[in-house]
């Protein structure tokens, strides 16, 4: 990686990271975690719908229609639970470079992000009970940017998340610049 001496021309030193960089996928187990969470959520919703259908049934609505609605909802939910985590998983990727973290995510709105390590204020690794079962962790990156100050990488193996955290911490500690940006 060569160091351009001056900034004489703005186009001189693009750092080709965005479309070209190869990204690491998340841990595949995260799909199971997402599915479990979606299942729980959708069970609650489905029970609500079911309850409504049953009350309508006893108040004399045609049962075939109710059954159709309930089955339709059920199929949609199952499809969603099966497909969505896979799409989401496919969309996700991250890579820790020398000076920056590159992220890519989002099914509907696709986002590519470059987070300079220098700009990271602090990092958290967190884990909920489902992630704990799969030994996964979530890396939460806080920057001073206001628009989206928290960047979250879900579904990293816990050891990886902690390794990245420690490396970034080390990077910040080693930074010779004492600039206070804010």
């Amino acid at each position, binding site marked *: 990686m060569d160091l351009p001496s001056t900034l004489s021309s703005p186009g001189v*030193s693009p750092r080709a990271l965005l479309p070209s960089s190869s990204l690491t996928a998340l841990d595949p187990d995260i799909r199971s975690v997402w599915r479990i969470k979606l299942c729980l959520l959708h069970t609650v919703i489905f029970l609500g719908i079911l309850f409504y259908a049953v009350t309508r049934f006893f108040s004399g609505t045609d049962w075939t229609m109710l059954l159709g609605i309930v089955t339709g909802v059920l199929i949609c939910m199952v499809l969603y639970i099966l497909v969505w985590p896979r799409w989401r998983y496919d969309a996700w990727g991250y890579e820790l470079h020398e000076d920056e973290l590159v992220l890519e995510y989002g099914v509907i709105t696709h986002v590519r*992000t470059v987070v300079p390590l220098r700009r990271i204020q602090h990092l958290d690794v967190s884990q909920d009970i489902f992630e704990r079962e799969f030994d996964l962790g979530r890396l939460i990156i806080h920057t001073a940017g206001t628009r989206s100050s928290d960047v979250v990488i879900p579904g990293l193996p816990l050891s990886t998340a902690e390794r990245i955290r420690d490396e970034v911490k080390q990077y910040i500690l080693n930074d010779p610049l004492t600039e206070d940006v804010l």
Partner: protein
Amino acid sequence: MSSTSPGADLPSDPASSDAPTDRPASSPVAEDASDNGTNVDAMNAGDRSAPASDAPEDTSESASEGASEGDNGLLGAVREPQRLHPLTLFLRFLATLPALALILLPTLTNPDSTIWMPLFLGGVYAVFAVPAIILQYLRFSYRITPRQIVIQSGVINRQNRSIPIERVQNVEIEQRLLARFLNLAQVRLETAGSASTEASIEYVSLRQAHKIRTAVRTYQRAADAQASDSESSSNDAEDATPRSETLFSMSLPHVLLAGAFRFSLFYLAVIFSVLQFVDPETLTNWFLLSQDRIDVVVEAMYDSPVLTVLTTVILAALLGWLSGILLTLNRYYGFTLWMEEGKLRKRHGLFTVTEGTIPLAKVQVMIVQTTPLMRAFGWYTLEVQTMGLNTDQQGQRVVAPFARWSTVLDLANHVRPLDLPETFERVSPLTIRRHFLRRLGVLLAVLAPAVYFWPSGWWHPYDIALPWWGLLAVPALGVAAYLHYHYHRYAIGQDGLYVRRGVLRHYLWMMPINRYQVFYATDSVLQRRLRLKTLFVDTAGASAFAYPDIIDVDAQTADGAVDTLHGQFHSLYRSMVATATAPPASTDARPSLVDPNAVPRALPLPRDSSS
């Protein structure tokens, strides 16, 4: 956060004011004398109760080194715990009078009630509110040591807030109208990290206010001098009266002109909301009795409704225009901006004089704004976006409310030398279509329910429900979409990113390289079909709306732009690291931490594919 500031909880609920006799000064005070005590610690200090007593930071005072000793003659008065100015009592009492009036209003306006009820209420008020004010006054003290500012307050819950002196970003002196007559001022301390005012000392005499500010500044300079020995302390001593240069000021005609461009319905709303309290019938009767001509007017209004509507609109516009002038006059009268020790300072206001400070080092982004009318006559507003200061408007502070383009550029150059690019790039023309369709969608989403619920008895011009007529706005949407495209430009300059956007109100953001935070390129499903992307660079303290997105750039260009922007950032910091590490240990403040020969990062990770 401001609710915890001693000024904000000023009219402390009268019901609780008799309690302090039960819990006198023995209520333990949390001492938060740690040097790195953050604001949060300071804020919580009142809630915690620690056995440490009222022997506050003797340590820190004794630790204050000789650097500040020369100032003791000048600042001695501030170092002792200080009370507020006695006239504060009077002002605070006045401030509670509206509450009293509100309490008495129902009984006073009720003709049946006797004189005893208001007297009783007034007596209750006097028993509770007056001691509350006095106790609050007695319990409030502040002092400024070389290390920190200590403010003790609170009647029942004692609060002991210590703000480390180097954290103080800004000492703002404000004089409201009444305080000005009494020559009093309110001192507000602002720190980084809290969006609102950290502490407020109200009221002290104006002289004392200036003294506090001088003290804080002197201590800060002393602390700076200690931190970096490169600066000789003798320089600081000479700088007791720092030289300043006025950068920008507005004369009275200038302020009035600025007001003429600012249309505001604010005062109209105030007037009408006040009128609500007055019985409308008496008002109308009074009008009718006093002036027969009102009948003529009413008849004329019945005769020609169109003319009436027209007149009303013109009248409202005129009043809005006038109130805009008055509002601007009140706010920006005597606007002066000057530079002092690397800080922009400004003072303005007619009834309420505000003095503000913007440290240049804290400026993130510069924003030039203009409305169509202002642009037609060549006037612009310059604002800077800061982080952690008391935010007037979403983290933006006005540097020049109303100035010519050349002045704006000149001022911006004072804030940060800038190199405005000659040419700006356009975004993809496809954005016209997208912008138009999006707005159309919003319009339909509003109109469709309105049409659906429109009662048949209501207005149907030409047998079509009124909301449908809203579709007449569609061509305007088209024009807006084109203007959006026309004015949306961006340029990656040598020193930063420049973005222009806006349909009616125009913005120009100037983001320097060293303020970039995070880089984004996003594409939604619809954008992907058109091979477009939105790119933006996050900055600290950016406002939630009016954000410098670059919308609908060709996908490849967008990715390339992000790479270029990040490349700028990267090479800038590479060279900064190189200069910081190259001359070994000569100027480096902390040479022990950095091995000058080592590459200052050790990330044993797979390299990126690019190189």
